[in-house]
């Protein structure tokens, strides 16, 4: 993960756009809160805008 983030940083992808978490099937509440957190984080960052046109 840290290696991926280092490479993505070189490509201009913010650290906050990638997250790795482990959630078991019985941790429903935790799953929901992680997803909500991540959603809020991404929304705050705004659209990705790849700029891959020629």
């Amino acid at each position, binding site marked *: *993960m*840290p290696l991926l983030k*280092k*490479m993505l940083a*070189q*490509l201009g992808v913010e650290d906050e756009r990638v997250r790795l978490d482990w959630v078991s099937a019985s941790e429903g509440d935790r799953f929901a809160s992680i997803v909500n957190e991540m959603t809020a984080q991404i929304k705050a960052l705004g659209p*990705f805008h*790849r700029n*891959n046109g*020629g």
Partner: protein
Amino acid sequence: MTKLKLALYWASSCGGCEIAVLDTNEKILDVVAIADIVLWPVAVDFKYHHIEAMPDSAIDVCLFNGAIRSSEHEKVAKLLRAKSKVMAAFGSCACFGGIPSLGNLTNRAEIFHTVYEEAPSNENPSRTVPKTATTVDGHHLELPETYDTVMTLEQVVPVEYFIPGCPPTVDLILKVVSALANNSLPPPGTVIASDKSLCEECYRKKEDKKITRVWRPHQIVPDPEKCLLEQGVICCGPATRGGCGALCIKANMPCEGCFGPPAGVLDQGAKLVSAIASIYQASGEEDVSRMLDEIVDPVGRFYRFGLAHSLLRRKRMTPPGTLSAAKQPLAEVTAR
């Protein structure tokens, strides 16, 4: 037997693919025996207007090398596509972007600034940079537009075949020539090399894939019998298509990834991150931090030849026409 009409063209290329064709030495005569070359700027004098005058699909095969980085490259790619029955992306640049696609880590404004304004060997007091049109002494002149982003051939026109390599090996080229001569080309969409990764072709002894440090090539002299990855040298073999005969490995150098991803791998760089990270034994923050210091410039190493072909294709751009907010300092990626 009517001869095939063959076109060879170079876009954002170094000429190495042309030389690779010439490296077939006397076998070039086999090519000439079966084909009439109707375009090959490095070797014959046909011009764009000759191609424009041809009817559509008049050319049997077009071997197109070089990446697409300007409006002229795109225009000629589309012209040749219209005039050719079969279009082959020849070489790593046309297949994946190649070394020029490292230009996707920057953009036109930054490149112009470095090349025409900052370069120490330049004398450019008026800070002139290329424009697409200008008038000099009453004469109107035009230049193609340099794009911000380098593209692969397939990203601008449909392509039937892919012949990877930087440059493609002579064996591979002869395979293509013989398939043409015998009318036995594989199904369209084929990458003419091996479908498997280089590791399966590599002769080195493979034991336990576990490393505790990564060495840069100048830091150790690798043992020529053992797997390079197992010795801590970053070798792109696991995520690179085979078919090249492991030439670099035979020279005791790691694979650079020029044949692109093997069949079934969508993004070569991502696969390499996964491969390297999975063999590195790290049991805590310190180990991870050390690994990050040792793996210098991941983007350059893992996407060396294929940035244009990757899922992200390029580094995100700051607003067009401006220099990047903080020009990336050299210290940031070379660590230590």
